């Protein structure tokens, strides 16, 4: 971390894209002293603040080689995200970050990447998709397994279908409920795992609600994937994002600092325990 985690700077909204009724993307450009460039790796996050309301942790979904701006894709769930939804080009937010450790991108260069996401669309993995697609020749096969509760929870439907087939990328979608017009599978995202074959070259990156991650991990381990090649991204309440406020603790870990991405073998003892 090169920037002061305790003090914000301003960023101006340059663009706003409505992705779905309750999901939007903000393209932000840092303002003020730009002598310290905004550098990050996929999986890292910012604390993004709305003046008078507060800050929330949001993953950075744009590509780290775009130096002039960065994107956040946000789902409206409450106060701060609701206020952000009403903002548009020219409006300003505050930014602290980037925080956390991010996904192991350099360390997984050359490997076959399997991304599994569930629940309400998983922003931390979007950055990985973008990253790999932009550096296609640096990675082996890319497989995206994405599950939603309900067909109407799926956004980026077009983007997913555009992705499918390009450079050997395969995208599999499933919905817990199905419904008319739904072309993907019906059932939990773990059912999609049968579409992949695990080899020594496979690395899996998983993000979603804890029970979904645990079920996915089990199935991948059953298929012979090593614990060391499994990565998960966690969510906790975060106030400071710098290892001081105590809110993000999971066992001995401050998720904001030693996470939010963890190698499964490092975190397995702390997963799946209610109320931990």
């Amino acid at each position, binding site marked *: *971390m090169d920037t*002061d*985690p*305790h*003090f*914000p*700077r*301003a960023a101006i909204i340059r663009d706003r894209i409505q992705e779905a009724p309750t999901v939007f993307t903000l393209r932000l450009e840092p*303002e003020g002293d730009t002598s310290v460039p905004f550098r990050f790796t996929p999986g890292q996050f910012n604390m993004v*603040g709305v*003046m*008078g*309301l*507060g*800050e929330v942790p949001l993953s950075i979904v744009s590509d780290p080689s775009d130096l002039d701006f960065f994107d956040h894709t946000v789902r409206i*769930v*409450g106060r701060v995200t609701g206020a952000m939804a009403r903002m548009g080009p*020219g*409006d*300003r937010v*505050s930014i602290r970050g980037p925080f956390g450790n991010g996904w192991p991108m350099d360390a997984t260069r050359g490997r076959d990447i399997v991304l599994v996401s569930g629940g309400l669309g998983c922003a931390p993995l979007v950055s990985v998709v973008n990253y790999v697609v932009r550096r296609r020749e640096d990675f082996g096969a890319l497989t995206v397994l994405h599950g939603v509760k309900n067909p109407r929870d799926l956004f980026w439907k077009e983007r997913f279908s555009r992705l499918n087939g390009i450079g050997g990328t395969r995208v599999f979608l499933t919905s817990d409920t199905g419904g008319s017009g739904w072309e993907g599978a019906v059932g939990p995202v773990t059912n999609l795992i049968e579409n992949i074959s695990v080899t020594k070259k496979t690395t899996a990156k998983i993000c979603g609600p804890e029970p979904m991650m645990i079920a996915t991990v089990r199935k991948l381990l059953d298929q012979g994937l090593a614990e060391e090649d499994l990565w998960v991204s966690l*969510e*906790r*309440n975060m*106030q*400071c994002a*710098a*290892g*001081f*406020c*105590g*809110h993000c*603790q999971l*066992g*001995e870990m*401050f998720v904001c600092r030693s996470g939010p991405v963890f190698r499964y073998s490092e975190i397995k*003892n702390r997963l799946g*325990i*209610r*109320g*931990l």
Partner: protein
Amino acid sequence: MTEESRGFLERERFRELFDRLVLRGYQTLAPVVRDGTIVYEEVSGPEDLPRGLRDLQTPGSYRLEAGESGRFFSWANGPQALKPLLFAPREILWETRRESDGALSFSSSSPSPRPLAVIGIRACDLSALALSDRHFGKGPFPDPGYALRRRDLFLVAVDCSHPADTCFCVSTGDGPEAQSGFDLALGELDSGFLVRSGSEKGRELLRELSLPPPESSMEEALKRQADQARSSQTRRLPSRNLRNALASRPDHPHWNNLAARCLSCGNCTSVCPTCFCFSEREEPALDGHSSLHLREWDSCFTAGHSYIHPGPLRGETRFRYRQWLTHKLDYWHDQYGRSGCVGCGRCLSWCPVGIDFTEDLPLLLGEPDGH
């Protein structure tokens, strides 16, 4: 490590210590009685300090009682000591202004504290301070407010002669005598204080006081006093190192027993000298052009502490009590190299329902159906 100097300060000359601190520009805090408890406040001399006072503490109760001795420090502790002086209960982190063109500007309101001297700090408080230093001082960007207040602190510790019934610092290895982290430490006798230095700053001040060396009978009397203080403590932890002993028992039924008593009020976390949680929030000005971003002490006993949409991860008291105790006695070892409990007993006395975890620990560590 600086060399230790020692001297004897007669009770009649106690004032000179206060005067020296004032000369050096310190705002001097010392124990005074407020609302039936002992708190640290600005004083001008020994006449502001209570004398002969005793504290009667048991789980769920704290009472002060006048005593016979003319001693200044014949009590153990009050609800707070150094924590609120360094980790402010409420602190403004920055102010945001929105200019007429919509641009945002931020200004930090760093406190400019006067150097503080605190007289009467105990061994447990010093251990807690060392732990807070590790927490708030870590990394390339330590906590700015804490670091600022910490920088110019002068600490005059006192060896405990009269532990409360709730104290168990002997079993945690933190007391009753001040071991390190002080500038000066006092051992109190009826006739005065044996003063020893613990830092270069302390040595200098001691030199200025030009005290006579202590007599060996005084040293012996203090040693007997410390031994007595040690043997008066009846409470203890089952082990100094409970790493993985609690974390490996998240489903132990005794957590339910604790949860049935705990009110989830968070008193324990606010009196605990090592609890560090805080939350941040905005306080917008009514005109809408500016807003303060502040932080306040928080507690893992609140629902908001673990809230992520659509609800708290620790919705039940069972999970909150388990988090508190497991963090304190178990996870702390991985985080900062030792237990987070310094045995001050505050969380016992100030718990409205008198939970005493030294009694619950053997049950939590025992077989689920054991007796």
